């Protein structure tokens, strides 16, 4: 069904465009909110992202639904970074920062964890940690690509990621640990 939807969007069918928007709007809004953190800005990023999607959809060749979603997410992420760059909201990183605190190699406690809580914790991360963590851990960018996007060194990208993981792990363990301690006691 998605293939037919894409074909109709390529022909400029307004109903198909509306249908595609309804299918992916909420999901992509969450993606943009993870980067810009403020809802009005996230809506602005989403709107510019969909404009770009419908302008460039003629150049897209459909393979499967995962490929379509990945293409949409890539466009929204680029729009979010562009928005941050335009508003000078990109975090300023320390160059060649050596990762001080290493994350605990022990597995994260998965009790009491839910997706909404993790999503909220990611959004609470500092801008630098959040951007690098989103790009590496969730979008799958390499450190080289992150360094090129954010105009930082690879070492800085690695250090920011380590700190993001450490902080996130700390919060998760703290939350999980608190829930675990309540159960025990």
């Amino acid at each position: 069904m998605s293939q037919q939807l894409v074909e109709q969007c390529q022909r400029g069918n307004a109903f198909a465009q509306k249908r595609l928007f309804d299918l992916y709007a909420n999901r992509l809004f969450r993606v943009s909110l993870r980067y810009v953190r403020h809802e009005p800005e996230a809506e602005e990023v989403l709107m510019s992202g969909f404009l770009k999607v419908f302008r460039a959809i003629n150049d897209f060749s459909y393979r499967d639904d995962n490929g379509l979603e990945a293409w949409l997410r890539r466009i929204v992420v680029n729009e979010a970074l562009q928005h941050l760059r335009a508003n000078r909201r990109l975090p300023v990183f320390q160059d060649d920062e050596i990762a001080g605190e290493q994350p605990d190699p022990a597995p994260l406690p998965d009790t009491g964890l839910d997706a909404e809580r993790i999503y909220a914790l990611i959004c609470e991360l500092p801008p630098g940690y959040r951007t690098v963590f989103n790009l590496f851990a969730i979008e799958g960018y390499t450190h080289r690509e992150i360094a090129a996007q954010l105009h930082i060194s690879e070492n800085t990208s690695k250090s920011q990621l380590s700190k993001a993981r450490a902080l996130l792990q700390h919060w998760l363990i703290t939350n999980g640990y608190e829930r675990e301690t309540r159960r025990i006691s």
Partner: protein
Amino acid sequence: MNAKPDEYPDHHIRQLLDQLPDTPPPGSAFDAERLWGQLQPQLSKTVVRRQFGIIWWAAAACLGSLSLLLSRVWLMPRNDGSHVNIVRSAAYKASEPKPTGNLSKIADKPVLANATPVVRNQPELRKKPSLPKLVTVHANPDDPEKAVVQTLELPVVADSATAVAEPIEPARTTLVAAAPKRRFRVMHVNELTAEEEARPKLYRTEHFVRLGTGTGHPQASTESVPALIIPFASKPNH
């Protein structure tokens, strides 16, 4: 080494995020319908602008091809040569000797018998010089007081200055006269030799062909003759 333990939390988090419902975050004021209402007018503008762009490009392409076609037709030389004739006649007219005011002056001037005519380079219309008239006066036998005046036309003496082998023709206004006058007769080389042979020989030995150099000392061998050396580069004369 650190990648493996780090991959676990990343993978875990990714899996958890994939389980998120397809709804806005709780407590969010996001409304997809409202956003579509804002997006749709901009989409229609994009489509119209794109259509106009295509139409403009098509019109520009048509105009360009039409102008190219017209320019080729305009500049193409015609087969009937009328274009060339127009050019030739224009050039001929430019080179045509203009009738100067001298003609009228010449006609008005009285031509005397002993006046030497002026030889002009340009062919121009001129009147024949009027024949000098000899006036004789002799006594009238009937009336001795009155004299009889008789005019006698003198014979025209051919003068080299005035003799014209051909009558002066007015300048032709046809295209044929525009071609330059040939000064020499074009003939085939065989005709030339035939003419030479047909021509009466003034001397008996005229048709003889000389053999040798005629110096009387035939060269014995070529060794005494220095070899002709032609330098590759000419030396400047100092």
